[in-house]
């Protein structure tokens, strides 16, 4: 037998067969023939190359990649298990089945641990076709799964890209809209001032509408930009002490708190993994809303946090006008407003920004109705990774 390999074939068969290209690692020609015959009897049209050393095996792998490798465990010049190393180093996922004489259970288990698909004893070759079939099926399924994973990863990447594109678009569009709009707003205002009373009552009114519309649109665009900035901010996050953030927020809201005679209480708040400025935005929006949407009584607002599984769960509760349950979802959508602009000013961007920020750091935000009056906004943030609390590296 030459080291280039020997050809064995079953093409002369009259029975319809499943084609199978096999590479046999075998020093005994008779055994090789028995292996091929065992497969042939069970419906395989086998084209087999037979090799018995590493050089020939590698050459054959490259020139005629097989669907399956059937290797003897003991060869005079080579160990059958070395086959696996070659397959790995060639980067090939080809099932390898040991076909061997006596093989102890321990050895067999060890071979499978090392990556052999299965083993068949030479005096039990009748089992071989089924083993081969299963190996091929498993490989096929492995391929399908891999393909599915690749497809999924590609989809995820496409989605992320299209999201980024959309965000970029929203940013550029709103940014570029600002300039011409500034002209419209400024000149309608100027027109209104210079020609007040000279264009008749209607004239003043019309210019007033145009001017108000332009100014409202300016605010909307600024809000949109603020919203899109949440995702654009290049901050990987860091450890943020919510007690400090709250202190800041209460200072910012000081005049609103005083005017409304609001009482804000808070429990001990944790450190979370987020962006400090953005966390301040979240608390400021939630507390600001609690003050803005107050009922007849002065606002009573409570900010708490508790550990819940792998998350911190924050709550901001108030005694304000509350939110009807059917609107609980809507309020987090950009530019959704539940109340008349004249009663409660604002564009409905605050909660959308909160949602975007919280989700950016792996949390969730929702609102629970308190029944009679008031609402509780709740949000979660994952417990900080260990290195955030323990590692605080120097």
């Amino acid at each position, binding site marked *: 037998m030459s080291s280039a390999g020997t050809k064995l074939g079953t093409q002369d068969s009259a029975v319809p067969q499943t084609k199978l290209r096999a590479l046999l690692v075998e020093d005994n020609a008779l055994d090789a023939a028995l292996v091929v015959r065992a497969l042939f009897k069970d419906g395989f049209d086998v084209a087999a190359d037979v090799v018995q050393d590493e050089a020939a095996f590698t050459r054959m792998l490259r020139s005629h990649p097989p669907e399956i490798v059937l290797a003897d465990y003991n060869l005079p010049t080579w160990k059958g298990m070395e086959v696996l190393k070659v397959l790995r180093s060639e980067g090939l996922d080809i099932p390898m089945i040991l076909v061997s004489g006596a093989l102890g259970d321990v050895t067999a288990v060890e071979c499978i641990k090392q990556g052999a698909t299965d083993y068949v004893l030479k005096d039990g070759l009748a089992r071989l076709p089924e083993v081969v079939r299963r190996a091929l099926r498993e490989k096929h399924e492995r391929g399908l799964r891999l393909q599915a994973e690749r497809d999924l990863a590609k989809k995820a990447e496409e989605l992320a890209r299209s999201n980024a594109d959309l965000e970029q678009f929203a940013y550029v569009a709103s940014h570029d809209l600002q300039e011409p709009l*500034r*002209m419209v707003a400024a*000149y309608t205002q100027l027109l209104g001032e210079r020609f007040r009373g000279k264009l008749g009552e209607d004239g003043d009114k019309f210019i007033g509408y145009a001017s108000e519309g332009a100014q409202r649109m300016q605010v909307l665009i600024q809000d949109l930009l603020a919203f899109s900035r949440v995702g654009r901010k290049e901050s990987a996050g860091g450890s943020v002490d919510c007690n400090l953030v709250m202190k800041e927020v209460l200072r910012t809201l000081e005049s609103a708190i005083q005017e409304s005679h609001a009482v804000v209480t808070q429990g001990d708040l944790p450190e979370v993994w987020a962006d400090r400025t953005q966390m301040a935005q979240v608390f400021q929006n939630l507390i600001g809303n609690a003050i803005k949407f107050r009922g007849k009584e002065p606002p009573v607002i409570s900010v708490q946090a508790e550990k819940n599984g792998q998350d911190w769960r924050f709550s901001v509760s108030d005694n304000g006008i509350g939110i009807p349950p059917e609107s609980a979802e809507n309020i987090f959508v950009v530019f959704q407003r539940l109340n008349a602009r004249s009663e409660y000013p604002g564009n409905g961007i605050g909660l959308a920004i909160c949602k975007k920020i919280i989700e950016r750091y792996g949390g969730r935000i929702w609102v629970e109705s308190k029944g009679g009056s008031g609402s509780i906004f709740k949000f979660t943030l994952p417990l900080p990774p260990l290195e955030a609390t323990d590692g605080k590296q120097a």
Partner: protein
Amino acid sequence: MKTGLRVLHVDDNPADLGLAREALVESARHTEIASVEDGMEAMAYLDRRGKYVNAIRPDLVILDLSLPKQDGHAVLTAIKAQPELRRIPVVIFSSSQLGKDIERCYDLGANCYVGKPGNLKDFFSAVKSIEEFWCGFVSLPRQGE
């Protein structure tokens, strides 16, 4: 009659040039505003080249950043690089509020940076404040020939 100070306003948007003029219509300072709409024109004016041979050097430059041909940063750099121009205060008047734009302008020697307000009243008061401060309050170097 008292002659006011001379301001060169550089902005590619005629609407903004117009608004700035409107802002100073009622001013008692008689500030004279010359306007050009791109960076090359601005430099020609300051260097008194071409049709600006007889232009009088301004006491103050109000400079937008996004300009065709030669942008505001380049104009600012050129002004601050020329000994005979570098004393002229340059007020950047831009709608950009990006930190990097603002920092770069100060790095290049801008004398101050004012954002263009979106609202008419604020825009007028910004322009009036610039005039009030630079043409009334501060002591400027004498324009020597």
